[in-house]
């Protein structure tokens, strides 16, 4: 299962953080700091997987943004790697050509999308269409 999801830029600013395991604040800060340090200097030619404590971080970089998922050591790495890409495609579709700024100013939307995509640390919906339609429904309610 996914332990947490982080979106961080190259400077280490957190753009989104979602934890599916209970952590204390100080621990969260530590985790965010460590994960950033772990992924930021990795060569693009390296694997997208890094061991992190007793788990594994699956990460992918899009422009200046790092998307990192912390998963169990036994989880299927490539499936989660593509799960990151699917999430990015959904964001891209929703914001039409997403950039970091969209995520900054609409962080609340990003949380909303994420909640339609992943729940309880597991994939909930893999159809881009279903999620985008659902977002449309929700926007009408606001």
């Amino acid at each position, binding site marked *: 299962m996914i332990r947490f999801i982080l979106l961080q830029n190259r400077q280490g600013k957190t*753009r989104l953080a979602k934890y599916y395991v*209970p952590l204390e604040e100080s621990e969260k800060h530590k985790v965010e700091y460590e994960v950033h340090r772990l992924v930021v200097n990795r060569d693009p030619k390296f694997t997208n997987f890094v061991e992190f404590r007793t788990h594994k971080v699956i990460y992918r970089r899009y422009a200046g943004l790092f998307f990192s998922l912390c998963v169990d050591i036994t989880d299927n790495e490539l499936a989660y790697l593509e799960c990151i890409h699917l999430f990015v495609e959904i964001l891209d579709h929703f914001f039409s050509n997403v950039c970091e700024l969209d995520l900054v100013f609409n962080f609340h939307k990003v949380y909303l999308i994420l909640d339609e995509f992943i729940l309880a640390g597991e994939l909930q919906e893999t159809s881009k269409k279903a999620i985008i339609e659902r977002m449309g429904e929700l926007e009408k309610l606001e």
Partner: protein
Amino acid sequence: MALSGMRGLAVFISDIRNCQNKEQERLRVDKELGNVRTRFKNEKGLTPYEKKKYVWKMLYIYMLGYDVDFGHMEAVSLISAPKYPEKQVGYIVTSCLLNENHDFLRLAINTVRNDIIGRNETFQCLALTMVGNIGGREFAESLAPDVQKLLISSSCRPLVRKKAALCLLRLYRKNPDVVNIDGWADRMAQLLDERDLGVLTSSMSLLVALVSNNHDSYWSCLPKCVKILERLARNQDIPQEYTYYGIPSPWLQVKTMRALQYFPTIEDPNTRRSLFEVLQRILMGTDVVKNVNKNNASHAVLFEALALVMHLDAEKEMMSQCVALLGKFIAVREPNIRYLGLENMTRMLMVTDVQDIIKRHQAQIITSLKDPDISIRRRALDLLYGMCDVSNAKDIVEELLQYLSTAEFAMREELSLKAAILAEKFAPDLSWYVDVILQLIDKAGDFVSDDIWFRVVQFVTNNEDLQSYAAIKAREYLDKPAIHETMVKVSAYLLGEFGHLLARRPGYSAKELFRIIHEKLPTVSTSSIPILLSTYAKILMHTQPPDQELQNQIWGIFNKYESCIDVEIQQRAVEYLALSKKGEALMDILAEMPKFPERQSALIKKAEDTEADTAEQSAIKLRAQQQSSNALVLTDQRPVNGTPTSSQLTLVKVPNMSSYPDSTDHELSQTNGTLSKVDSSPPEPDLLGDLLGPLAIEGPPSAVAQAPQSVMSNVDGVPNAVESGAIVPVGEQTNSVQPIGNISERFHALCMKDSGVLYEDPYIQIGIKAEWRAHLGRLVLFLGNKNISPLAFVKAIILSPSNLKMELSLVPDTIPPRAQVQCPLEVINVHPSRDVAVLDFSYKFGNDLVNVKLRLPAVFNKFLQPISVSAEEFFPQWRSLSGPPLKLQEVVRGVKPLLLLEMANLFNSLRLMVCPGLDPNPNNLVASTTFYSESTQAMLCLVRIETDPADRTQLRMTVERVYQGTVDKHTYASFNNSAINRHTTGSTTRSSCYTITNRSWGNVSRFAVGQRNDSSADFIQYTFVNMIIQPAYPYSGDTKANEGHHDARACGVLA
């Protein structure tokens, strides 16, 4: 994309983005937090829209990494808003800010339940999402049946049902005992007929969780899973939106194959045949394509199929196909695929006998050990470790040793551990083993844990053929100019034990051995000197007849260390000197060590124990357990040398060399225990343990944790001779069991809240829940046995100071396995004092007698009750008083800089009510509270803090105490800010502590003789000063600084 709705939020985000530096950003955030806080205070004027906006702002600030310690209530309260926009914000922000352990969440349970059982579909979704993300035990208890109903309801849209499936999954994973899944097998089978792939994806995850726990009830799901897999693999009837780069939902395929791995086998021939057809198609039909995403997705499916094939013990032909594929993968350039090739080869080793085929790839794997990417190197190391056997051990260990010199620090410890284990397991001859270990110590001494050298000593002691060889080797290393300290230890030990066997060889006379060992003494730390002293004593003993010159030299050394400050060294020096003067007696006592009992290698055990935790138990692991273990396990014979060994922590026990076995033993077992972290308890099932658990990254907490405590209790004990008996210094504990977490920090945290963990070690967890009313308190101790065997000789004694009356209910002698016992403790606060009660707790697990002394959080501030005071009441009072004893003032410097908001929060958690607006100066803080004790009844206390925004490291505090009944006299506290040099918590703080403690000292002793005294102001101030100076009190800071303060106070008191 246009900014949505909230202008204020967008403006705030822009402001933050425009900040030039961190300081500006902090100022802007502080301003906003202040603003939000005041708006929340007068909630009446707040429209739902505004509230929503502020809650979003809070989340944003929180995301930036700032502490947001208020407003949780507001976020939670939005959940019960009637309209969607507010409710949505409430749910989302709550699930980001809070986790299952927050008490606030309880407030929302009812609303959440109403939303779940209500008719509004959108509300249902929101509620299910939050519970799925952060729901804890209480949620499981009250909501699981409702969620189950939604999942199988025919009237709900797929949207709701997929959320219900995952929500249920969360509740079940966290509390499998609470969620009733009787009869769910049929329902799960029905759910697998679902046409909507979203619901099916979620349900499949739920199924994995259920079958990983117990597959037996779910056989009916098996053929359905195979059907789903067939449908996906053949792309039959899969909507376009569920294909990803042309591949029908790779995620669902992966999950389905995961579920299948939890069934031990497939009986039905038809099902088995269809499954193998599908798998064959995946194995053969996956090609490398250009598009990265497509390639990844298809390989995700392929690797899962490989795992399933391995699990099913397919025909030889298919297995060799798999091995061939993996062999191809570990040679490709694409790093992800190579990584996975290595990883899956390692897994394959666990379940099938493919060692010989994999051995052909050895050269390729060794290349990966030198890859620039650490992730790949780790996988290669694991694989080499797994594939090693007698035939290739020499080559592989050789490679590892070579790599050790160039490997980065992060990997050296693992490398040396693995090399040591392989050398031990597969040594073709024992002298090679000794060579390897000594090389290891030589090349990477810093990363060789004590276990490793203990183990080599054990081997040499037990194998007579090896002894001379080992001594020669040790002598060779000692000749080198610079060697690692561990090498000094092991060489000195070996030469002391076995050097005499070589006495006739040139260069091995007692004198020469002594000379080369003694040359190293100035280079080693205190922890090694005791070993050297023992070696000297042994050398002396073996020199018969005595050599006068050598004897004088060695006696000279013993003489010198007789006054050593280190107790261990001192004791050995004194004893060895006395013994060696006895002549004959020395021979008996210092004779060669007896053989060690054979037992499982601590190293192997250590390697086996470092298992990661996962949401579901790994299928491959389950399977490996079913097969007979071929791991090397030595039988645990009866100890030869009589003393039963505690196998938990001192797996490799170094023999006692002095006549006082305990002292030596203790020292060594402690080093051993802290370093090895061999935990005999089964891995925590709790998900909470995952990231917080004791990790190799963090250092051992024990020594640091206990030090401040002992200082603290000493200090507490000093002021009152009568009470000092109750407070026992904790420093002399001789436990070999190490606590988990910092005891002192846990205590401090509990001083600020009413429930939490007081103490934890591998065997037991002691939790506390407390309720306070006026001068009365009721604590409940929760003693939880974490093991599968009972804890015996459980004893709990309360050592209470004279100011507290405490009564502990009966504590059972034994705690059954995995059980929790509750022991209520009644507390009465008799009169004010700073003394702390101590729980003296002991139990026995196996051979370990564990005794800990824990301070109980029945502290001064628990007997406070916040009370608000109006300006009309306040001012006339505090002006009328000017000095002690009812009003005390103190300038405190060198405090941890706190924002006013943070300080207000600190006050709140100390149960002082901050009265905003009372003090015209915005940099000041005024608070009031009532203190209760049996002798004083209610005392009103007022506090005022004056701060200087320019220098937050100092403040002036004034505390005033008002007589009970009407407000007739006052206390207030004020903090000044005359800018003198402050900061370095050394001298300035020392002086302030000094004065305070002196004063308290006087007051406390007056209490002791039973006088009524108005000292509350005194120790409120004392408490506050302490709290504020001590960064670690409310916030985690460094304990070192704290120790300094306590020391300072101790000095003050003693002076």
